[in-house]
């Protein structure tokens, strides 16, 4: 079971079906969507798709997460149940990429 949960390494992963998933795409030097709302208090998975030719680092300071995403690859970021609040996300490799926001309500 633990093996199935330890999934970060594979460079391009489909989301885990059993965990509610939201998708964030990176293309044209932007994250889409830039603002998204999620339910507070529930485990969640963010499926980050890098549809661009650039290497990015998907990072969130407030969520304490950072992962490199190779061009045309995807990763999964699993989050435990979040309390209500606003959580940043950004590309740590490119300072000019607009920062996004995840709002847990």
């Amino acid at each position: 079971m633990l093996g199935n949960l330890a999934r970060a390494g594979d460079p391009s992963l489909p989301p885990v079906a059993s965990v509610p998933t939201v998708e964030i795409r990176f293309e044209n030097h932007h994250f889409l969507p830039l603002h998204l709302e999620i339910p507070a208090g529930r485990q969640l998975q963010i499926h980050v798709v890098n549809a661009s030719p650039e290497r990015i680092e998907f990072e969130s300071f407030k969520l304490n997460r950072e992962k490199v995403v190779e061009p045309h690859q995807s990763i999964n970021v699993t989050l435990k149940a979040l309390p209500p609040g606003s959580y940043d996300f950004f590309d740590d490799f490119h300072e000019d990429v607009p920062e996004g926001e995840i709002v847990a309500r």
Partner: protein
Amino acid sequence: MPAQHRTICFGVILFLLGVGSPKCRAQVDPWEFEVYPYATTQRGMLELETDNAVVTRGHDTGGDGTAEGTFPSQGMWYNAYEVTYGLTDRIEVAAYLTMAEPSGRPYQWAGDKLRLRGRLFDEDVLPVNLGWYAEMEWHKTPDFDDASKEFELRPIAEKDVGAFSVLANPKFEKVLSGAGRDQGVEFGYVAGVYYRSTRALSPGLEFYGGMGLLDQTEPSSEQQHYLCPVLWGELPHGLEYNFGVGYGLTRGSDRVVIKFNVELERFVGAIFKGSPETSWFY
């Protein structure tokens, strides 16, 4: 608290403080006032870091406080250059060059270190995120240490609670060559509590200590314990910093140590492919 529990707690405190035990070494690494998190340097990333500390109120004789060798700690500058590379998604390798400038003496080589560090599973798969740390150290003796070669192991534990991160790195160190080679395993600790305020500036509180041998801790007054309020964050261009002032809590500690660590990481290319889906160790 029941009387039986109070007795047990008192016993544990006495054990930890080493009341009545004979003198032996207490280990705090002044070249690296840093608490390690669960996360490792990502695969293909190269991190350059410099760790700096200066003892502004220390001891005037060698072998006391943070100085393990013949030079006194008072006025000593400790300076380490560290290169870390993310080997796999869960393991990093690092090499250190450690330098020092004792008061009134020239800036000079003090030793080297090689280290492997890893994380187990993905974030939050376990109730507490766990990792490991293994290090070989070489010291310039007798100037900066009385042991020329040491091996260190640390389990790493991290728990995020809201905006707080709690990190603990208990240290187990064995002298392989030089004074203390015939002794057992030394025990120390590195720990921290950090609050995530803003990316640029956040507060934290770090703890460093060395207590002597596992089976023969030093008298409490000769152990080293430091409380270190820190400010940490990320400056423009990805430059990360951690600045703090460490206050010694025992006679065996230096009274005041100021530390300043700076690091920068860049993607340079991965040697290995991504870890398999079923892996949890590498």
